[in-house]
């Protein structure tokens, strides 16, 4: 049997409980802190907050480990525990080797004194000796790209310069275990590349890296293992691709839930508005009465109007898997399914849809009349489906108008901006429309494909 690989970080069944702020408990906690050495010893459950609940993970020496999760899921707490800044309430954390934590860059800088002096003091704070700093000083300054400003007081630095200097010092501590909390976003493109190169070098030299980040592509690209924290609990741990994709799926589900809730709220508000007598001081332009269309429909806020002789009872967006959804990838096939109902049979009707982006610009609009489909009869209940073979929109949030009206525009039921959906895209192109396209080069033009995500 192979011996278990050496662990650089071991977190075993760790719970971290914070005290909720409560004035009247101030003395009690001070007393318990002095007597028992813990702040949360005799707190009642309603006074405490669990940042981590029974989390365990191990990081092999020489591997890169990523932690992902929503804001407030306990990622930073986990990192602080590993860094030894705070102690776990229960459970154990053990780390082997010299640690450097990139948690808050330049946390110890003093604004009044020069960058040079700050490098020395910051380095000593991080555990270097004066001699080590002298030896690495030029390298630090060069890495931070601050050769011209190193003797100026740090208070004159821009926030980018400040972060770069902090980063350069911390990374030059040459730790065995490097802890990184979302600090890669500090510099411009070029600096980010330099940081990534530095990580690659760390990996090559078999250093252990613990990375907390929202940049999921980094986790997929760099990490050997990943942990997904959700509300203080470990939801998944293991292969980064699997963990990240589980996390993304969960985030999308939650986004859809939020969008559905927001839409439901908007619809409810519209119904309430329609039921109530007209408010003369309503600030947004809403139709005068629930029956009449507003003067300029494309300027109107969300609303619903029409005679209701024919009604749109339900609107669903359906993705490729046939399930109702609200988050789609650019280029995905999407079907908009409208449930229709007519109290008495109608023979003059047009069904229309419109897609608007967040700025209120109409990205696409069509109806049965425009497309030479003559409404003949709408009787009882039925369904109309608009299938968009490829939703070629750029990433963003969009809203949907759906309408049922007469050929002359007389509205039966018009739903204005009551349904939203989000389009995701791997690229960050501009505009609204993302036509299918490709690039071609010939002659003296040469391009190279860049590694995605950097």
């Amino acid at each position, binding site marked *: 049997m192979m011996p278990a690989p050496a662990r650089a970080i071991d977190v075993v069944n760790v719970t971290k409980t914070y005290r909720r702020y409560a004035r009247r408990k101030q003395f009690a906690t001070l007393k318990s802190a002095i007597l028992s*050495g813990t*702040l949360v010893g005799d707190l009642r459950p309603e006074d405490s907050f669990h940042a981590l609940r029974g989390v365990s993970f191990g990081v092999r020496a020489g591997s890169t480990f990523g932690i992902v999760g929503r804001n407030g899921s306990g990622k930073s707490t986990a990192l602080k525990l590993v860094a030894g*800044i705070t102690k776990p309430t229960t459970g154990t954390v053990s780390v082997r080797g010299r640690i450097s934590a990139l948690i*808050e860059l330049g*946390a110890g800088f003093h604004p009044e*004194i020069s960058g040079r002096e700050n490098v020395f*003091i910051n380095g*000593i*704070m991080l555990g270097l*000796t004066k001699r080590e700093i002298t030896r690495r000083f030029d390298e630090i300054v060069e890495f931070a790209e601050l050769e011209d400003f190193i003797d100026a007081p740090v208070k004159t630095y821009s926030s980018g310069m400040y972060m770069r200097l902090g980063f350069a010092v911390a990374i030059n501590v040459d730790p065995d275990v490097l802890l990184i909390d979302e600090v890669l976003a500090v510099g411009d493109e070029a600096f980010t590349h330099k940081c990534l190169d530095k990580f690659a070098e760390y990996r090559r030299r078999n250093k252990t890296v613990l990375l907390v980040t929202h940049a999921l592509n980094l986790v997929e690209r760099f990490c050997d293992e990943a942990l997904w924290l959700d509300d203080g609990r470990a939801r998944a741990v293991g292969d980064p691709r699997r963990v990240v994709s589980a996390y993304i799926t969960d985030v999308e589900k939650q986004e859809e839930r939020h969008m559905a809730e927001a839409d439901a709220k908007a619809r409810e508000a519209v119904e309430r508005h329609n039921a109530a007598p007209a408010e003369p001081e309503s600030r947004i332009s809403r139709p005068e009465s629930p029956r009449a269309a507003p003067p300029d429909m494309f300027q109107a806020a969300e609303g619903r109007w029409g005679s209701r002789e024919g009604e749109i009872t339900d609107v669903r967006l359906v993705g490729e898997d046939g399930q109702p959804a609200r988050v789609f990838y650019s280029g995905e096939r999407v079907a908009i399914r409208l449930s229709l109902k007519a109290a008495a049979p109608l023979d003059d009707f047009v069904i229309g849809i419109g897609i608007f982006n967040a700025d209120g610009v109409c990205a696409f609009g069509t109806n049965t009349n425009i497309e030479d489909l003559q409404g003949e009869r709408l009787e009882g209940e039925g369904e109309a489906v608009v299938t968009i073979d490829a939703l070629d929109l750029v990433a963003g949030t969009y809203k949907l108008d759906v309408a049922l009206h007469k050929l002359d525009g007389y509205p039966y039921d018009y739903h204005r901006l009551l349904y939203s959906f989000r389009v995701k895209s791997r690229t960050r192109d501009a505009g609204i429309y993302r036509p299918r396209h490709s690039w071609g080069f010939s002659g003296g033009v040469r391009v190279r494909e860049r590694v995605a995500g950097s």
Partner: protein
Amino acid sequence: MLKNLRGLLKYRQLIQSMVARELKARYRGSVLGFFWSFINPLLLLLVYTFVFSYVLPARQPNLDPYALFLFCGILPWTWFSSSILESANVLISGGNLIKKVMFPAEVLPFVTVLANMVHFFLGLPILVGFLIYYRAPLQASELAWFPVVVLVQLVLTLGLALIVSALTVHFRDLKDILSNLVTFWFFATPIIYSMQDAPALAKRFLNGNPFTHLAISYQEILFYQGDFGHWKWLLALGAGSVALFLAGYYLFDRLRDTFAEEV
């Protein structure tokens, strides 16, 4: 706790460079720079001398020259009181370090006390100037006690600074309580008056004040003629200060893990 105490030795480079930074940063950008360390006590002394020699003339001939007598007490008092007042705030204002970096928190009150000690040392040349100007009767055997007095004051101040800084994190009112208490403490110490002139009842009260014995020691060594007779008190205070320091360190160590959450 012993392990942590030994760790303090490890941090001496850190403490040293932070004290240097504290001093550099304090006067950075001011025209007179380091001279403020001389000018501040000098101006303070001028005010007190003016008030107590001309506005409210001191009647005791044994306190002549009054400026010198005053200076012997005020200079160490300034070190003591600034250290205590600043250390009340030091963990809170250094919160970034405690929360975001693995940082030995006790370094912060140490740096405060030591930086103020450097200011005290920088004020000493003025004291020496006064001593020479007034041809004060100094004895080598007495002067040998001077470093001992300074050491006792250092240990006492460190102990108090540790306690004050740790407790203020949990009990912020302490900062305001202290600023009033320090004013009271100043007048409850024989600095602007002499111990001999205090009524008998007050003497017993004053003897309970640790800084009384430091002030008397400074005055006996630098101001009064004759041998240093207060050494028994001083050594007793020294022993008490070491005990206070250890108690303060124990308290600080006990509360250490709570700082990152509370500041």
